[in-house]
């Protein structure tokens, strides 16, 4: 054989590459959701935000020729959707889960509507950082082409951890999420803190969309998100609202996505539907293992999902 075949080594390589390629959108969405939920509100609408981000990134990159403008546009479009969610979900007697579902439909509908002209053209993709030296096998070289967005997400995770633990603003967000009454007594505006947290979280989710359409797989189609926004919400729960744990969980999910195709390509013939379902089985498994009827989840913000509207 003229070309070097990797054989079984292809499987761990594909999973390793998959963690970096496929994990990036998970990472951004879950970090965004983590920030949002820390302030005590749930934003299920990130699935719609992801699609909107993917569409705006692709569209702007195509129209201006600069992928970085696309990333910025994705973040901004996310923040706008976040502002809508932030305002709506904080009205009296409005349930944030219900608003989130409405935002999924709104965000994806808007993205499909505005995205029609961008399905066909090819937009400028984000440049990748090549970590491999030229002596390595081409497969390894391809796996080591890392997106700057992945590195950005890698940096944001510990930064957010530090932000929650050690800064005044982080304390405000935690206070609003855990005990709105106490936060109000401190003189913190619950509305503003939640609004900003949701907008910032949606900004990150929008960038996650940009990673989908401008890095991997690098196209804009209506099926591009395939439920990743919702999975990232579940991912935050078993990451225990901890940004660093979000990072590991995202990598795990990204890797699990590439398992099915990788195993088939080395000749594992049976059970590919099972392998394709790997991320979902993993979610279920972790949820079952970590849930207990005797205690509530450690790390869950106290006011999460309750209608704890401080009357301002």
């Amino acid at each position, binding site marked *: 054989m003229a070309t070097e*075949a990797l054989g079984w080594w292809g499987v761990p390589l594909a999973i390793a*590459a998959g963690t970096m390629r496929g994990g990036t959108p998970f990472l951004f969405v879950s970090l965004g959701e983590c920030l949002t939920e820390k302030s005590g509100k749930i934003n299920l609408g990130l699935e719609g935000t992801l699609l909107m981000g993917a569409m705006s990134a692709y569209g702007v990159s195509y129209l201006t020729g600069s992928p970085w403008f696309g990333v910025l546009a994705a973040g901004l479009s996310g923040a706008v959707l976040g502002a809508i969610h932030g305002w709506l979900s904080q009205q009296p007697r409005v349930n944030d889960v219900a608003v989130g579902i409405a935002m999924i439909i709104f965000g994806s509908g808007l993205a499909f509507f505005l995205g029609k002209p961008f399905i066909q053209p090819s937009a400028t993709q984000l440049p990748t950082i090549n970590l491999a030296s030229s002596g390595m096998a081409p497969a390894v070289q391809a796996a080591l082409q890392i997106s700057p967005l992945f590195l950005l997400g890698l940096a944001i995770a510990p930064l957010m951890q530090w932000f929650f633990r050690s800064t005044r603003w982080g304390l405000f967000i935690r206070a609003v999420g855990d005990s709105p009454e106490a936060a109000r007594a401190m003189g913190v505006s619950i509305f503003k803190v939640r609004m900003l947290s949701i907008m910032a979280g949606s900004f990150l989710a929008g960038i996650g969309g940009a990673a989908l359409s401008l890095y*991997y*797989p690098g196209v804009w189609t209506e*099926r591009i998100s395939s439920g990743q926004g919702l999975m990232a919400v579940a991912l935050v729960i078993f990451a225990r609202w901890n940004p660093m744990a979000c990072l590991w969980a995202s990598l795990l999910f990204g890797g699990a996505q590439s398992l099915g*195709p990788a195993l088939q*390509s080395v000749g594992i013939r049976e059970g590919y539907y099972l392998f394709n379902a790997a991320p979902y089985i993993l979610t279920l498994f972790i949820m079952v293992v970590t849930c207990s009827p005797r205690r509530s989840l450690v790390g869950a913000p106290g006011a999460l999902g309750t209608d704890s509207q401080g009357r301002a």
Partner: protein
Amino acid sequence: MSSKRYLNLSRRQVIRGMLATTAFGLTAKLGTGCSPASNGAAAGGGADGLTIGFIYVGPKDDFGWNQAHAEGAAAMSGAFSSVKLIEEASVPETTAVVESMRGMIDIDGANVLFPTSFGYYDPHVLSLAEEYPDVQFFHAGGLYQEGVHPNNVGSYNGYIDEAQYVSGIVAAMTANAGRLGFVAAKPIPSVLRNINSFMLGARSVRPEATTQVVFTGDWAEPIKEAEAVNSMADQGIEVVTCHVDSPKIVMETAERRGIMCTGYHADQLSLAPNGYLTGAEWDWSSFYTKLVTDISEGKSLMDGSIPHMLRGGLREQFCKMSAYGAAVSDEAKAAADAAIAQFMDGSMVIYDGEIKDNNGGVAVAPSESLKQQDVKLEQMNYLVEGVIGSIGS
């Protein structure tokens, strides 16, 4: 402040409003419910009042299956000024398609429908066809069964595996080691037939060639399709092709990884200018125009003047080949052109026994020579020798 009233409406006004809306909705529903009968009666008249509905499973410009049909529909509607074309894209293969079709018949008065996705047929098209016996349903696929399914249902499909056979020849003669790859959606007969014809084409010029198959599980799985191409590139596969709804990702990922590809559904040369060898394209424009000419002359499925199974390949202009890419040698072009010539004069039989399946069994017996029209090919449930993969789950 707690008893804020937003709209100043009393409870009585709200109830009255709701009653009025419901009543209006009911009459509107009943009113349109009557229309299909009258439309159906008018349908026999001629091209006047012919309303044709197209339903696609994805967006209309996806470089794939849907784009091929939408281009065909546009060409057809351009040829007939009196035909009203209505289209709906991104309709899933669920009861959603029943609602789309019902809406097209009841509200827009459609008399001919083209539900273009495989999964629309059973049970959705079948149930609606019984309900509206005057509307003609043309389904893209090979699922019609004479005597079992309603009389106003027809199915049409092109033998695009003929074009895949030619692609296989080009791919095998261009790849150094003869290692080919195929990204497939689901192990159903029409997909398996493309894989097998691609492989048989490749083996007809290069007996040691192999085709690695990766099934993604659904028609549009962008990330899995990209992963599949990446994994195959890692394994040293030299040429990939696919049978998924939108080949865009497969072609772009192959180009990025520096391997070659052959297209499917539509021309994808612009997506992979270096690695694109050739491709199997649909040619629905001529088919739709011809079919609608027949319908406007008063022919119909119901009286048998339009056959229930419409089939054709390269010769009947159901499909065509993309122009050869830069990497294709003159030798490969000559071999491919020879095969095309055999398809054109009707002398080519792809499934000519003996053909073994990839488990060592006999797929096509030595005495058999299955022509394209043979129903046995529509029930294909094997992968031929040389294909690496399995159709079991």
